[in-house]
């Protein structure tokens, strides 16, 4: 992660007069700022450091502390098909499935919204914005009741489509913003050569917004991978549940004794998300890409 955050303006400002006037005070302030930041970083890292250290600790407790003996036994203990690999595979199917559906549907929807002036396009965008705001945990009880009526409870495809739908508003919003930055003149050239709108979308627009599509896909994937509440409510049989739910079941069964294994499982499950986040920062060239996209 690069952490590029200073504005270019801040680096290039002349500041000769100001610098001379307030020299020693500015250095003292800067020193204080750096110290405060280091203290905050230390406080923020402590809870996470526990997960990392406990996973390699032979006698892990709930408190952060140097391990008595470093071991990988916690990892080998949990690496069984039913405990780890199947839930991780389920998480992958859920995340990749909802990511793929979301991207395809969002690209299709974003195209007319980005390219045509439609009278109801504005209202559609308002409803999409409204959808991004809807607290999903608030609708989970009615969603459960709806899934009972539709006979979709404990169905992996049903859950995938539901997760795709909940990430769709944000995905449409992001995709439209990415698409708006592709100049329309390139498509007009394709149109004059007789290409249909969909052909122009596939051959001209999509190749130009590949990084944007990757960001949207990873965004949805990461959200689905980390989602606990939705699969917790909608998927009932253990062999269909993703890692987020099975890790919670593990916590309920062995969590009060096998802290090291719980930490190892957590680390294994969190690693792909951390990797993908680094990937997004590389693609979009900014550590704060996801929040920037969220901001619209």
């Amino acid at each position, binding site marked *: 992660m*690069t952490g590029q955050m200073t504005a270019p303006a801040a680096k290039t400002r002349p500041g000769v007069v100001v610098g001379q006037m307030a020299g020693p005070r500015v250095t003292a302030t800067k020193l204080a700022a750096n110290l405060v930041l280091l203290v905050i*970083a230390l406080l923020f890292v402590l*809870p996470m450091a*526990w997960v990392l250290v406990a996973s390699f600790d032979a006698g892990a407790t709930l408190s952060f502390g140097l391990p008595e003996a470093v071991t990988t036994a916690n990892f080998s203990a949990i690496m069984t098909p039913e405990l780890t690999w199947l839930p991780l595979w389920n998480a992958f199917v859920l995340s990749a499935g909802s990511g793929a559906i979301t991207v395809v549907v969002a690209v299709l929807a974003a195209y007319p919204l980005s390219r045509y002036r439609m009278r109801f396009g504005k209202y559609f965008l308002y409803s999409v*914005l409204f959808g991004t705001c809807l*607290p999903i*945990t608030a609708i989970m009880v009615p969603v459960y009741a709806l899934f009972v009526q539709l006979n979709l409870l404990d169905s992996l495809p049903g859950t995938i*489509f539901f997760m795709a739908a909940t990430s769709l508003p944000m995905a449409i919003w992001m995709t439209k913003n990415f698409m708006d930055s592709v100049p329309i003149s390139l498509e007009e050239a394709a149109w004059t050569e007789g290409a249909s709108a969909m052909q122009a979308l596939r051959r001209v627009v999509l190749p130009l917004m590949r990084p944007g599509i990757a960001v949207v896909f990873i965004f949805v994937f990461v959200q689905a991978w980390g989602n606990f509440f939705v699969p917790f409510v909608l998927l009932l049989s253990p062999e269909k549940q993703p890692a987020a739910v099975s890790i919670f079941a593990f916590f309920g069964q062995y969590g009060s004794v096998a802290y090291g294994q719980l930490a190892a499982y957590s680390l294994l499950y969190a690693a792909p998300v951390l990797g993908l986040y680094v990937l997004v920062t590389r693609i979009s060239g900014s*550590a704060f890409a996801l*929040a920037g996209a969220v901001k619209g």
Partner: protein
Amino acid sequence: MALTSRGAARVVPLAPAVVLLALFMLGPVVWSFYGSFTNASLTGPAALNPEWIGLDNYTALIGDPDFPKSLWLTIVFVFLSAVVGQNVMGIMLAGLLRSAVKPVRSIASTVVVAAWVLPEIVAAFAAYAFFHSEGTLNTMLGGIGITGPDWLYSTPMLAVIIANIWRGTAFSMMVYSAALAEVPPELTEAAQLDGANGLQRLAWVTLPVIRRSISTNLMLTTLQTLSVFTLIYVMTGGGPGTDSSTLPILAYQEAFKFAQVGYGTAIATVMIIVGAVFSVIYIRALRPEVD
């Protein structure tokens, strides 16, 4: 609008999105309003064929001492952890990062963002271990001779509020970093030459310039915090008793632990209405970007 064949062809790509959103987003919302007027339950005959019971769930809500308590806990949780905690921490961090040297800046922003990027269940475990009576916090307090309480039982709201600030500050920090980068340096320099101190510059120059980012961020963090479930559920389970049961926890427990889906749906409907009010305010603020 007369739908010509060309107009129709333009609308077709929107269809999959409309179907998905109507079925899985609008459907549950409509169902929520309907279901809250029924005696739907988790199992038994009332699960598949719920009966219409009118306003009974809502009168029960008002009579139930757990509901006003839960509503109050939700307000406290959202106000202290999002409106105050995440926003003040976020803007403070964004400001500090600007005057830090590069290695410190990278370390601090990476660590804060990592807490936000972690899957919520892992973040919840980490916070649980931190605040547990035998956890890191009490070990540290023990190191300076203080015997810490069992935070998760004696002060559950304090523990989940701090955990949520830890978890969510990164978002505000990123939004405010972007906003501060766009404040013209001439403005603050001019104020400095006029003799304004740091706090005065913040209050009279910086904050007014980034006010739009502030209102957007306040709305978004409020909505995100309103729907926090996993963090509280893992750390305290809403307890002890109902001492940390915010509305999402209460709705879940009524529907799935006590099998009263209709009653849980009534709580969900209240949350949807609260969320909708905040959303409308937020969307009005964003109007220029749509038009």
